[in-house]
């Protein structure tokens, strides 16, 4: 059977970017057939002030945790110098456009690399449109969808579900079958959970 995986992430959370690699490796190693859906989560929805990279919270968090972990995992990452950090709502509305066009994974990866390797302001409609075009989405239609708020309501409905129904309070969070795993997990933990869920579902 196909095991559904939902992963809640916020494009401004470095641990969500770091989660991509062990997740892909675990799916390949487990032999379990999966269907992954990337779900939106806003750690700081408008008008909550966003973080500033020059301040101590991010400086110390990256020095003590993000950089050592990324090095251990062999992932290139850099604290973006966009200040204050962007809101991620618009980028997530763009994700729904990408998902409707079969490019959810490509779009998600491009958001992470744009922010965490190239310090792009992923709250800016021009930046997002250019990134969308890079992965093969139609620039005019993409920009129009963001401008018109075509996916605004659908995005808010997914957020509401995350907050209220699944009660996500931290990202990344993985829902594998009906098991919710909070926080960045390594490949072994994910493989083990995938196999457990598959075994439980198999008559």
């Amino acid at each position, binding site marked *: 059977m196909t095991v559904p995986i939902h992963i809640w992430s916020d494009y401004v959370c470095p641990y969500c970017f770091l989660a991509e690699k062990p997740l892909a490796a675990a799916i390949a190693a487990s032999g379990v057939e999966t269907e992954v859906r990337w779900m939106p989560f806003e750690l700081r929805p408008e008008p909550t002030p966003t973080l500033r990279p020059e301040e101590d919270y991010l400086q110390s968090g990256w020095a003590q945790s993000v950089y050592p972990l990324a090095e251990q995992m062999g992932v290139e990452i850099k604290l973006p110098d966009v200040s204050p950090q962007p809101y991620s709502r618009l980028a997530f509305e763009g994700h729904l456009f990408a998902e409707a066009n079969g490019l959810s994974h490509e779009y998600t990866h491009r958001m992470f690399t744009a922010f965490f390797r190239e310090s792009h302001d992923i709250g800016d409609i021009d930046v997002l449109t250019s990134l969308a075009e890079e992965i093969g989405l139609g620039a005019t239609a993409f920009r129009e969808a963001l401008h018109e708020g075509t996916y605004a309501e659908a995005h808010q409905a997914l957020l509401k579900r995350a907050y209220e129904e699944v009660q996500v309070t931290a990202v990344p969070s993985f829902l594998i079958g009906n098991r919710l795993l909070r926080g960045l*997990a390594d490949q072994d933990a994910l493989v083990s959970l995938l196999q457990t869920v598959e075994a439980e579902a198999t008559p």
Partner: protein
Amino acid sequence: MSIVVHQINAFTEKAFGGNPAVACLLDDAPDADWMQAVAREMNLP
């Protein structure tokens, strides 16, 4: 629609190479005003 979710607390278990799991935490529980604003936009109670 509702789903039953079995929570796994990775914070107290081995998560990454034996380290405690790390995550980005929600700053505050979404406040009531924000949730109500969302509900209004969606024309829900």
